[in-house]
């Protein structure tokens, strides 16, 4: 007889309804225009104009008016075709680039674990370096941007731990080996340079390097693009496992609907630098509202 109602496993209390947790990133109106810019840049691009190049001043409106909240522990997908502004957006958050206008507020902790807030669009170079070295992690589509090909796999992780202020050789070695284990890079490859690795292993090493200082925000830009499906699956598995274990907030940039379906709870859809639609990922995929999203989803089926 089945008596499942008598099972003894405790049921946890329901999560509080009003999510009172504050966002780790609050972006408002982020805009990045390459070129001189003019008063008509915004009205002459995006929407139904079908372009991101201003015909009046030849500036490129890479990102325009992007607002979103990223909550702790959340994976936010950013989906769009090539040139839609996805990489520019994460580069702004990673402080690799500065916006023309708009704000991005970061909430995290300082070295002592105390609450710390930084307006990313206004921070100085030293603060930016501290955030990149110790609070943010970035994984690029191109492994040459995220790895040092002159040093070994272990050296890549050690470099990042050193810049994050870790001084003990032993601690660095132990952490490097545990990161390699976690990202499934065999320990016997620790003294090999990344140039000798497969594409999938290079991406896993990039993830290990990005995670080394235990960042509070992980940005992933097309990290599975161009890899075989089985290699992609392994990386996607790994990303979710990391999220489950560390609860690090992530922004996952991709042009692949399958990637957001598997990874992201919520998704922004970008076109010509604008967010045309945002929502819970399965709603974006099964009940897209915007004509552009409908076209993206139906052409992917």
């Amino acid at each position, binding site marked *: 007889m*089945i*008596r*499942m*109602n008598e*099972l003894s*496993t*405790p*049921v*946890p209390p*329901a*999560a*509080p*309804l*009003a*999510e009172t947790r504050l966002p780790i990133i609050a972006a408002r109106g982020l805009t990045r225009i390459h070129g001189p810019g003019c008063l008509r840049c915004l009205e002459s691009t995006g929407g139904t104009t079908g372009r991101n190049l201003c015909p009046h001043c030849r500036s490129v409106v890479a990102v325009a008016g992007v607002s979103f909240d990223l*909550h702790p522990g*959340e994976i936010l997908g950013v989906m769009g075709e090539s040139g839609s502004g996805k990489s520019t957006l994460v580069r702004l958050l990673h402080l690799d680039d500065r916006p023309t206008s708009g704000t991005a507020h970061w909430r995290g902790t300082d070295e002592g674990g105390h609450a710390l807030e930084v307006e990313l669009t206004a921070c100085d170079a030293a603060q930016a370096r501290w955030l990149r070295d110790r609070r943010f992690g970035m994984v690029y589509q191109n492994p040459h941007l995220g790895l040092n090909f002159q040093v070994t796999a272990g050296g890549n992780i050690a470099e990042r731990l050193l810049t994050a202020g870790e001084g003990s050789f032993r601690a660095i070695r132990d952490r490097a080996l545990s990161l390699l284990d976690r990202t499934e890079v065999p320990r016997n490859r620790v003294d090999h340079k990344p140039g000798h690795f497969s594409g999938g292993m290079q991406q896993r090493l990039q993830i290990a390097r990005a995670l080394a200082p235990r960042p509070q925000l992980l940005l992933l830009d097309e990290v599975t693009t161009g890899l075989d499906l089985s290699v992609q*699956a*392994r990386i*996607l*598995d790994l990303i*979710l496992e990391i999220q*489950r274990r560390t609860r690090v907030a992530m922004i996952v940039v991709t042009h692949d609907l399958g990637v957001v*379906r*598997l990874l992201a*709870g*919520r998704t922004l859809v970008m076109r010509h630098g604008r967010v045309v639609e945002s*929502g*819970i990922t*399965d*709603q974006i995929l*099964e*009940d897209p*509202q915007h*004509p552009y999203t*409908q*076209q993206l989803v*139906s052409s992917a089926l």
Partner: protein
Amino acid sequence: MNPSDPTPVLRVEGLGKSFTVHAAGKHLPSVTDLSFAVHAGRLTALVGPSGAGKSSVLKCIWRTYLPESGRILLSTGSGTGTDNDAVDLAAVDEHAVLALRRSAMSFVTQFLHVLPRQGTLAVVAEPLLALGVDAKAARERAAELLRALELPERLWDLPPATFSGGEKQRVNLARGLVVRPRLLLLDEPTASLDAHAAGLACAAVNAAKAAGAGILAIFHDPDLVRRLADDVVRLPAPLQPAA
């Protein structure tokens, strides 16, 4: 309806949903002015001809579809018996919906979107882990459900991707029941099961009901409606033939 239970788990009031397909210039009505309730410890069956919008109703409640009009009031279980005690799923923000999906409701469909390499026991235990239940307790609860549904133990470490339709469906049902949701949404949960497995699935659904869940279900087989439903909501034939 059950008048002796004034605070249903779910109250749907005047739900409307249609789809605008921009490329085709089409507007397709799916659900019109639908109202019903789901009560704790009872199963409400949604019945109606194909294309009547049964699955759309479930997807509106789960917020896979954006409801267009009406209210979808989910009791938060605080037991004050007033409207303040409920949250409108048609209106709350995305983070609140995602939190309620984790803690208060489950949706068992015919499809399973899970990580390709994750083993079955982990797939079933995952909703509990996401709620912070300790790993051992989560695995035990998952194992109990898989055992009750007679999924052979030798399959528990394997990813469900390669399983038969019937095996996948049992994994899906176990995953939906593992958290003991206040509201359970079932879309043809036994469609690919043989008679014996369907019987086990029905027993599992009845056990969830006995434990107090409010259940809203679509069944492919009218006999299952007769066997399992306490309340029946009939949807009219579609205004326009569905695609």
